[in-house]
């Protein structure tokens, strides 16, 4: 494996292609995906006891299930006998998982049945020791379920750190009743390295007007304003920032388009009017709750649009009341393949028309058929074609945007001296601080050892 220090020049912020190479990838599966807290789903995906869905943590297949006692738990989707997938479905409800190879039966993770066990094992097998491997740490935070293979990992609270404030107020909105995930996940491949996608979501607002220029042009020309209205705020009446979370002290989550000012609220109200008085009331109610939460703030953010929870959970659609919220999980599948899983969540107590519109808008933009992701994936696959083709990798990539401005207060002059009342390093929208933090932390993780066995 190449020396990571020579690949990542943290002085000039130049990064060599080799961070995307196959040997690095193998190690990532153990260090990054073996040690980090990984998003695995949302409480609303398993409302009833024994509801479950199958999933991946990195390349590792798992089952997430609400157990008989109502607790959400996670297991390797792998029979302890000979490794067969014990649950071949995408989701469902099942008290037991019965392995289709030799019939070992598991319930709530415990091994409860072994065919002919007297004859076959004559007591030589201790059922208590051979239950499904349980994900050692699995925790739901505000409805978001995360799992972690490393028994010595920091707590999920510490892992999320600064991110909690943003998720609470703008995404989860538990005081309004929280989120619900629409059943079903969209899955598609992108022929690129997972980090190319994740660093984009961590803070690459810079690409939007270029990569999505054709989409923006189409929106401008189109009679159909349903989609435009949630995305592009009316100019001038808002300020937008990027945020580097846990900058210099923790796990590098990134947020783009944190917006303050009245612009987005006005857009939301315009869109809501079209949907009727219930929708308008909902937007007002959201605002009322938010105002209360931030009542001491002089400078109040309205929302953020999206971001990346390290390592591979992309968020988008968070910015508007009329926009479905996407959880986009970027599963690694080799150095140059990423399997994207996208869920759409909506605010549970929103009026039906708002939910329907939100789902519709997210679908138009971020479904596998979405106009935004289609362009992103076209770019990502081109980058991947250019990686590790000697001798081109002599010339590293450039991650040095806005280094000079890092640490300066990007807020308008009117706020000079006003303390920032919330966590995270605020930067201007066009920045690469979040990406630099991403790779700095990543390289530290890569220098650790794989997580030890339980």
């Amino acid at each position, binding site marked *: 494996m190449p020396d990571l220090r020579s690949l990542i020049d943290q002085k000039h912020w130049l990064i060599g292609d080799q961070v995307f190479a196959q040997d690095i990838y193998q190690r990532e599966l153990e260090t990054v995906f073996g040690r980090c807290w990984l998003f695995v789903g949302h409480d609303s995906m398993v409302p009833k006891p024994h509801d479950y869905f199958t999933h991946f943590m990195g390349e590792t297949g798992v089952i997430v299930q609400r157990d008989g006692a109502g607790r959400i738990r996670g297991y390797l989707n792998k029979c302890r006998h000979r490794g067969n997938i014990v649950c071949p479905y995408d989701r469902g409800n099942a008290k037991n998982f019965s392995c289709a190879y030799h019939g070992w039966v598991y319930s709530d993770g415990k091994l409860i049945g072994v065919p002919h066990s007297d004859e076959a094992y004559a007591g030589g097998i201790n059922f208590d020791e051979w239950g499904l491997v349980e994900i050692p740490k699995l925790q739901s935070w505000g409805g978001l379920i995360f799992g972690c293979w490393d028994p010595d990992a920091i707590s999920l609270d510490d892992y999320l750190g600064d991110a909690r404030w943003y998720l609470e107020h703008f995404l989860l909105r538990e005081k309004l009743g929280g989120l619900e995930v629409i059943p079903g996940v*969209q*899955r*598609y*491949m992108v022929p690129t390295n997972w980090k190319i996608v994740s660093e984009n979501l961590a803070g690459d607002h810079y690409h939007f007007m270029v990569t999505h220029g054709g989409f923006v042009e189409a929106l401008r020309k189109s009679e159909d304003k349903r989609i435009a209205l949630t995305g592009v705020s009316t100019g001038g009446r808002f300020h937008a920032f990027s945020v580097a979370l846990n900058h210099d002290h923790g796990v590098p989550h990134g947020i783009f388009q944190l917006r303050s000012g009245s612009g987005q609220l006005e857009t939301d109200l315009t869109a809501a009017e079209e949907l009727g008085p219930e929708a308008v009331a909902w937007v007002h109610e959201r605002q009322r709750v938010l105002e209360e939460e931030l009542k001491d703030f002089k400078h109040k953010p309205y929302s953020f649009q999206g971001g990346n929870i390290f390592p591979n959970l992309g968020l988008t659609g968070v910015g508007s009341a009329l926009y479905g919220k996407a959880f986009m999980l970027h599963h690694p599948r080799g150095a140059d393949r990423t399997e994207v899983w996208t869920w759409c969540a909506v605010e549970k107590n929103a009026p039906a028309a708002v939910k329907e519109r939100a789902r519709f808008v997210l*679908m138009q933009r971020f*479904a596998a058929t979405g*106009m935004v992701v289609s362009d992103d994936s076209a770019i990502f696959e081109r980058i991947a*074609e250019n990686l590790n083709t000697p001798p081109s990798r002599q010339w590293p990539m450039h991650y040095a945007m806005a280094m000079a401005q890092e640490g300066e207060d990007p807020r308008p002059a009117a706020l000079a001296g006003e303390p920032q009342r919330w966590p995270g390093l605020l930067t201007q929208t066009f920045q690469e601080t979040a990406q630099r933090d991403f790779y700095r932390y990543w390289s530290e993780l890569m220098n650790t050892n794989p997580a030890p066995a339980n």
Partner: protein
Amino acid sequence: MRRVATEVQIEIEQFLIHEASLLEENRFDAWLDLLADDIHYFMPIRESVEQPAGGAPASSSGGFPLYDDDKKSLALRAARLQSRLTPSETPPPLVQRLITNIAAAEAEQGGYYAVRSNFLVHQERRGRHINQFIGRRDDLLRRAGETFQIARREIQLAQTLLPGTISLFF
């Protein structure tokens, strides 16, 4: 539902073949003209859902669809495909569409036809990336003089993990 007369079967086949040809040639405005103003254009995801004991194993049509469009949003999508600023369409991928298994029946409403067809859509980007989509369509066609309009289309792919993002109509 009654099967249709031979003449009508051929008419319908030729209509779907013509439609495919327009899409292959990126003639999106002409394609939009084939759609009824009130079209519902729908493509659910495919997934496998285990039912509690007793229920039949299902391949569900979940709630977060791939397409759930009306004519306005289809027109928006077409506008994006035609912009010269769209990376996924620059250069334009090469697309070929095999439309097969066309079965038409008279629908309950007079002047409507329920038409099922299977398809394989092949898309190549820059010689490096080939994605193929295979599935079925259930259309409701409305007679419109010498031709038809597509009043409803439901598309079902035989793929749960898609080979890539979709910048295509089916």
